[in-house]
């Protein structure tokens, strides 16, 4: 795989994961349990949307280097079909109850922080500068989702049971975060991409103490979604992504090229 092609794919993974999770968090607007949480979820979604735009805009630049013509961030976000999306399956999972949303965020935020910290040292300066900016925002996301996991886990019997169930349900979607394939191989040695395999141990070390404090158990399942290079990063998705995109892309599909 040539370097530009690999870099394009890698940037789609970063950008699509942010954009899809932002869309999920946006679904909470007007539905949050209390106003502060409604606003909090929307603001985290907004951070992720901003970061996703930066990654997709860069993907478009790289695509132009590779093919001679590149798509804009909007074309990439709104005019690709589901199987062209490269987001993690974890982030397309439905919001469910508040525990499910927080479990998804908790798993993702800690991995996201570690990934961005590694990418802030990328040999590709355009990646490093986006990561160095995003990492400051994600530090607040990490704090918030950890606080909620503790509050719900070490809360009532009901909140504890729901939080544990959410962690167990989403656990098989975490394996994909730390898997690498030919795209990563083409970029890791050059110091451009982060080696996701090396992030799993620090991730476990970060989430473990939070789960302890929350009186929750780290799920033990070994089976993971997306094994064998057939996960979201390769364009294989759950049935949930199509529904999400049908809403997210509606306007540009119905009125192509519409502008504010």
């Amino acid at each position, binding site marked *: 795989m040539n370097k530009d092609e690999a870099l394009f794919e890698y940037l789609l993974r970063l950008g699509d994961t942010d954009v899809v999770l932002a869309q999920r968090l946006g679904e909470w607007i007007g539905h949050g349990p209390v106003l502060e949480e409604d606003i909090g979820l929307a*603001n985290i979604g907004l*951070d992720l949307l901003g970061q996703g735009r930066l990654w997709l805009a860069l993907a478009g630049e790289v695509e132009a280097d590779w093919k001679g013509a590149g798509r804009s961030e909007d074309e990439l976000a709104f005019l690709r079909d589901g199987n062209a999306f490269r987001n993690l399956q974890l982030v397309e999972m439905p919001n469910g109850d508040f525990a499910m949303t927080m479990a998804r965020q908790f798993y993702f935020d800690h991995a996201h922080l570690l990934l961005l910290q590694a990418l802030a040292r990328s040999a590709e300066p355009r990646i490093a500068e986006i990561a160095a*900016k995003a990492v400051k925002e994600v530090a607040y996301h990490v704090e918030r989702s950890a606080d909620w996991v503790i509050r719900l886990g070490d809360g009532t019997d009901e909140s504890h049971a729901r939080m544990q169930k959410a962690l167990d349900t989403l656990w098989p979607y975490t394996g994909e975060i730390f898997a690498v394939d030919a795209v990563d191989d083409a970029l890791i040695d050059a110091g451009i991409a982060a080696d996701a395999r090396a992030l799993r141990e620090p991730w476990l070390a970060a989430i473990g103490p939070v789960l302890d404090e929350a009186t929750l158990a780290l799920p033990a399942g070994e089976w993971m979604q997306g094994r064998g290079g057939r996960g979201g990063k390769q364009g294989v998705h759950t049935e949930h992504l199509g529904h999400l995109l049908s809403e997210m892309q509606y306007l540009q599909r119905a009125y192509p090229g519409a502008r504010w």
Partner: protein
Amino acid sequence: MVTAEQRSIAAAAAGSTTPALDVVWEALSAVPDPEIPVISIVELGIVRNVAWNDGRLQVDITPTYSGCPATEMIATLIRERLAAIGVHHVDLVQRLSPPWSTDWIAPEAKTKLNAFGIAPPHVTRSRVDVAGISPLRRAAVTIPCPRCGSTQTKLLSQFGSTACKAQYRCTACLEPFDYFKPH
């Protein structure tokens, strides 16, 4: 008193369109932040540099947060303000590095924020270590209420009316308030 800006407007009317950079800075200092109109985009640290390049004015700006919805509004306001002093050939360049920090907020702007009812960032250096694990959790700090000055305040949410602010409540005067998070 005739300000440098007024002189420039007069000069623009006379056909001159490349005012000195201090005039440009003065003009940009009159552009309010759309979300927090008591402080300017210069005081907030959004404008990083201005320079003339072959008769075109290059303005380097940096977003506060990646997803800040005010970014495009700020670009429009900058163009309008510069047009008012006769500068029509403007190149706005977005800079991501170094990433924006609350350390760049001018000291006098922090006083204005407080008077406006937004508690300013309480530390002078960024709390986020890019290389290490976030030290944010459990870092209990006291944020004085911008209305009554009481230190009996409580964090309600790390995210307030915008991504850059947290929401607090004062347990002395019972008013909620925004806190500009260190970044």
